């Protein structure tokens, strides 16, 4: 709907025929973009994945309504918006036990199902001591609701998620990365897909704050990773308003949409020595986080490959099948998202043992990625219709011709993380993400 909203703003009226399960989200999107309403025609869901005959019948049924909305529609009158300052946040009194308070938060839509630490003014003031930024600074209007996130509220959400004052620079850097247009927060927080934020952290801050990067880094007993991950989804659902079933349309959801994926790179056990952040142009002493939105990750469990090529071959199998159905062939990183250029990069979270095996035969990460580009292929019949149209220079092909998923090494990004074991993870990106966003964590 963002696209039709822009068309309205350049002075051209629009009518949108929308699958009726998604009109609520569409109308909410329109309002969050500052338009009072737009002309919609509800069409019976589903519209996708039905036969040509069925979709044409739906068009026949919708046509009179489309003409009506095109020529005789007026927006409903909207109330004048009351302007309330974003700072200071409202203070509320409540009498009851902790359990009652926690329930009140959930009932009001101020928590997402896990217990919260009450954001009392004292605790929030203590959190604010972790940054020099002014509490009234607005750091993000969080889509889709466009709630105004101030530094004060970053501190409040930090308290709720059990963060500590020394985490404030990290939380503010997370907000900076997620709000970058390249991340496409709106699309990622409202899609039917099980997307979740992925935050990769590099630098001395890993040990300073005790951020998990070794055994079980994405599991329990990792208080900083968990608190930061919880913070992200509190922000997304509460001030951002991305709540199922009307706005967050994720068919199944995912646990990463409850506590986001936050992981450090195991820089000490990285055989290539250069961390991901250094590869992106930062200094080894910089504290850096990288954010992107991912589809659910899958796993490579390879206990038997001895050579680097053997291990990369099994890794390629997982990469090829990651985000199946939506992924396109011969994707290009330097071109923007399109149906035939979808899921343009993925991260590999290599366990250190797997990294060592690969390093023995591939002395640079780039050479490993180049090998994977060649080996990550699917026969044409395994791509969804319309997702794979090789260019002329590819040459002749038929349904059984192996066709690569990627075209360049920059599309397969490698970090080393986790502890001992023969395990790695594959995290493909959501299609509308332009690129991973790396930002400095500024103290």
């Amino acid at each position: 709907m963002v696209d039709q909203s822009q068309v309205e703003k350049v002075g051209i009226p629009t009518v949108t025929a929308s699958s009726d399960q998604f009109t609520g989200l569409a109308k909410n999107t329109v309002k969050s973009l500052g338009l009072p309403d737009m002309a919609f025609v509800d069409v019976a869901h589903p519209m996708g994945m039905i036969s040509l005959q069925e979709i044409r019948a739906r068009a026949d049924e919708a046509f009179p309504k489309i003409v009506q909305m095109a020529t005789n529609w007026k927006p409903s009158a909207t109330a004048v918006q009351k302007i309330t300052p974003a700072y200071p946040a409202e203070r509320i009194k409540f009498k009851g036990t902790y359990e009652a308070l926690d329930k009140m938060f959930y009932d009001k839509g101020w928590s997402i199902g896990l217990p919260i630490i009450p954001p009392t003014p004292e605790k929030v003031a203590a959190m604010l001591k972790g940054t020099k930024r002014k509490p009234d600074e607005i750091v993000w209007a969080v889509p889709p609701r466009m709630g105004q996130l101030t530094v004060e509220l970053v501190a409040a959400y930090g308290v709720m998620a059990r963060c500590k004052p020394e985490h404030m620079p990290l939380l503010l850097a997370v907000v900076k990365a997620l709000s970058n247009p390249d991340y496409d927060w709106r699309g990622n927080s409202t899609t039917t897909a099980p997307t979740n934020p992925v935050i990769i952290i590099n630098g001395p801050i890993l040990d300073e704050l005790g951020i998990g990067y070794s055994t079980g880094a994405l599991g329990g007993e990792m208080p900083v990773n968990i608190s930061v991950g919880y913070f992200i989804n509190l922000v997304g659902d509460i001030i951002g308003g991305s709540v199922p079933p009307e706005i967050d349309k994720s068919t199944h959801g995912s646990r990463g949409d409850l506590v986001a994926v936050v992981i450090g790179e195991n820089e000490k056990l990285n055989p290539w020595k250069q961390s991901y952040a250094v590869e992106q142009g930062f200094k080894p002493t910089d504290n850096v986080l990288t954010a992107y939105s991912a589809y659910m990750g899958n796993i490579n469990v390879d206990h038997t490959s001895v050579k680097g090529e053997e291990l990369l071959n099994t890794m390629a199998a997982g990469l090829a099948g990651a985000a199946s159905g939506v992924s396109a062939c011969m994707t290009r990183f330097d071109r923007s998202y399109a149906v035939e250029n979808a899921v343009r990069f993925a991260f590999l979270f290599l366990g250190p043992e797997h990294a060592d095996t690969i390093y023995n035969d591939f002395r640079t990460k780039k050479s490993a990625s180049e090998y994977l580009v060649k080996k990550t292929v699917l026969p044409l019949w395994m791509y969804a219709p319309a997702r794979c149209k090789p260019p002329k220079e590819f040459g002749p092909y038929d349904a059984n011709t192996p066709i690569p998923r990627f075209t360049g090494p920059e599309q397969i990004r490698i970090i080393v993380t986790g502890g001992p074991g023969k395990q790695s993870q594959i995290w493909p990106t959501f299609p509308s993400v332009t690129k991973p966003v790396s930002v400095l964590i500024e103290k």
Partner: protein
Amino acid sequence: MRRPFIARLFFAVVIGAGLLLPSVSIAKEQAQEWEIINPAGVVQIKQEQLAPRITTLERKTIVLRWNGKHNGDNFLNRIAELLKERVPSAKVIKLYEVDKSTNKISGNLAESTRIAQVIKGLGADIVIAAQTD
């Protein structure tokens, strides 16, 4: 006989009370006065104007816009047929055929603005879009 019975009763009461103590202490979690910060924040959105509406499709340029989702083009193809049949004076442009770079959900404002400008450049009087799922 009476004295041992009273003694047993006394011990039973004491032991029973002892067993109940932990649950009594849990049940005694005191309600307290809390002051908390409302985390919902406020919403401030700059209000924008809708485009002026049209009252007829006759002799208008109608641009059909597809966001790339399955069947949206098939839906709009049928709408194009119906427009040609019912409003022959209208000019119908299938954006998804004349500029395939627009067949997408833009994902960011810059791309969205670009698509809007492409449509404006075609002299559109109205856009009919399909948002399928």
